[in-house]
C-alpha cells in the first residue's frame, strides 16, 4: 500500500470515528445485541438457541443497512465537497483511492461490530460468549459485501441524496423483497421449483447466505428440519466464490467507473 493510500485509510477511520451516524448506529447495535444477550441469559435452558440465532437475525437486517449507508457517500461526498479532484490529483492511482476509502470504512465497521458484539458478551457464560464472538468475522464479511455495493453506488452517483436513495432501495430489495419474491415464485409455480434452485437463489444473496449458514451452524440442520425448514447449504468453494464475488465485483466496477471519470468521450 502506498503512502497516500495509507494516509487515506487512516483519514477515513478518523473521519468515521467523528461521524454522528456511525456513533448512533454503533450505540444502537450495541444496545440491541446486549438486549438480546440479556434476554438469552434470562431464558436459561434455551439460551443456546435464543442468543446466537437472534443476533444473526438482527445482524441480517441491520448490518447491510449500516454498510450501505457507510459506503454510499464515500466518493459522491467528496465530489459534492469539491475535494474529489484534490484527492485524485494526489500522486496515487484512482483504484487505490477507492480501495483505501473502502478499507478505512471497513475498519470502522469492524470496530463498531466488535464493540457491539463484544459488549453483549458481558452477560454471557463462557460457552455462549465463544458463540457470539464467533459471529464477528462472518458478520463483518456480510458488512464487507454490502459496503462494497455502497461504494459502487457512491462512485456511480453525482449527488449524495441520489446515492442515499439507491442505497436504501438496495437494502430493501436484498433484505426484504428478495425473500418475499422467492416465496411468491414458489407459490406461483405451485412448488414446482426444485430445492436446489431455491437454495441457490437464497445463497446468491449475501444476506440469505449469511443467515442460512449461521442458522445451520448454530441450531443444526436437523433442528431446522424439525421446524419444517429444509436447508441445503452450498459447498465451501461455492460459498467462498459467492462472498468473494460480492466483495470484489462491485469494487472492481466502482474502480473502473472512477478510472473512466474525466476521460472525455
Amino acid at each position: 500500500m502506498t503512502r497516500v493510500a495509507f494516509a487515506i485509510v487512516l483519514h477515513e477511520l478518523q473521519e468515521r470515528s467523528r461521524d454522528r451516524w456511525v456513533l448512533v448506529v454503533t450505540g444502537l447495535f450495541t444496545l440491541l445485541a446486549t438486549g438480546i444477550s440479556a434476554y438469552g441469559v434470562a431464558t436459561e435452558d434455551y439460551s443456546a438457541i435464543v442468543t446466537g440465532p437472534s443476533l444473526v437475525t438482527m445482524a441480517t437486517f441491520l448490518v447491510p443497512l449500516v454498510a450501505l449507508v457507510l459506503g454510499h457517500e464515500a466518493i459522491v461526498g467528496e465530489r459534492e465537497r469539491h475535494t474529489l479532484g484534490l484527492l485524485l490529483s494526489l500522486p496515487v492511482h484512482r483504484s487505490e483511492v477507492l480501495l483505501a476509502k473502502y478499507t478505512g470504512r471497513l475498519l470502522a465497521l469492524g470496530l463498531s461490530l466488535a464493540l457491539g458484539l463484544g459488549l453483549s458478551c458481558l452477560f454471557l457464560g463462557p460457552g455462549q460468549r465463544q458463540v457470539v464472538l464467533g459471529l464477528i468475522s462472518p458478520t463483518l464479511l456480510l458488512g464487507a459485501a454490502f459496503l462494497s455495493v455502497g461504494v459502487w453506488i457512491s462512485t456511480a452517483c453525482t449527488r449524495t441524496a441520489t446515492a442515499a436513495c439507491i442505497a436504501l432501495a438496495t437494502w430493501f430489495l436484498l433484505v426484504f423483497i428478495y425473500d418475499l419474491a422467492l416465496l411468491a415464485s414458489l407459490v406461483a409455480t405451485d412448488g414446482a421449483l426444485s430445492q436446489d434452485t431455491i437454495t441457490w437463489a437464497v445463497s446468491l444473496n449475501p444476506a440469505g447466505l449469511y443467515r442460512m449458514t449461521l442458522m445451520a451452524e448454530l441450531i443444526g440442520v436437523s433442528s431446522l428440519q424439525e421446524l419444517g425448514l429444509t436447508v441445503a447449504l452450498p459447498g465451501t468453494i461455492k460459498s467462498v466464490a459467492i462472498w468473494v464475488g460480492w466483495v470484489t465485483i462491485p469494487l472492481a466496477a466502482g474502480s473502473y467507473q472512477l478510472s473512466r471519470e474525466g476521460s472525455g468521450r
Partner: protein
Amino acid sequence: MKITTDSLVVEYGKLRALDCVSLPIHSGEVTVLTGPNGAGKSTLLGVLLGLIAPTQGEVRVDERLIAAQGHFAPVWFRRQIGFLPEAVAFSENMTGRQVLSFFARARAVSKSRVEYVLGWLGLENAASRRVGTYSRGMRQRLGLGVAVLTEPDVLIMDEPTGGLDQQGLSLLWEVFAEWTHAGRTVIISSHELSLIERRASKIHIFTAGELRASGTPTQLRVQSGLPMEMRVGPGLDEVYEAILREKR
C-alpha cells in the same frame, strides 16, 4: 519549467469543452485563465491536474509529454502540483489541523510544517475546531494551506479569490509573490479580473472552449483598442492593508 499545450481538444460526447487550445505557460509567472462559465478554464486545469484526459492534442512539460489522447497526466508530474479547488468544503467532521495533517501524511510533509502553515493562514486558534464551524473564507484559506503545504513547483488554483476576505486575499498575493520570485509556476482560473489583474503576468481569455486572446494586461488593453484611463493613487485594497498595518 515550461508547460505547453498543443492543439488541445477535450470533448464530452457532443460538447467540445476545449477546442484546439495551444498556449505556453512559463515559470516565474502568474498565468490567469479567464472567461465566462463553461469557457473551458476548469477543463484545462483538469487536464494539467490529471483529472481529465485530452480527446486530441497534447501537453508537454519541458518537452516531456505528460498528457495526450486518452491519457491522464502521470503521477510523477502530479507530485509537483499543489491544487486549490473551487469553493472547497472539506469534511465537516474534521478539524482544520486534521485536514492539513491528512494531506501532510499523504505527501510526506512534517508536522512542524503543518503548524507553520496553520499559523501563516491565521487559523492557529481555529485549528482544533471542526471545519463545519468555519466560514467560507476560512475554508478557502484552509484550501490555500493544502495547496501550498508541499511548496510545489506548480500551483493550480480554481477561482482562488472566491469567499476570501481582505486578509485571505493578502495571503494569496503573498503566495503569488513568493512563487514567482522563486521561479515557480502559478496557474489560476478566475472571473474576478479586477482583483487579479495587477498580479497577473499573462492573461488568457477563453470563450466556448476557444482561446480568444492572450497577453500581459497591458498588451490586452492595447489589443482591445479601448480608450486608456489613468488612475492616480493607490488601490483600495492597498489602502486597507496600510490601515491594518497601522493598527498593528
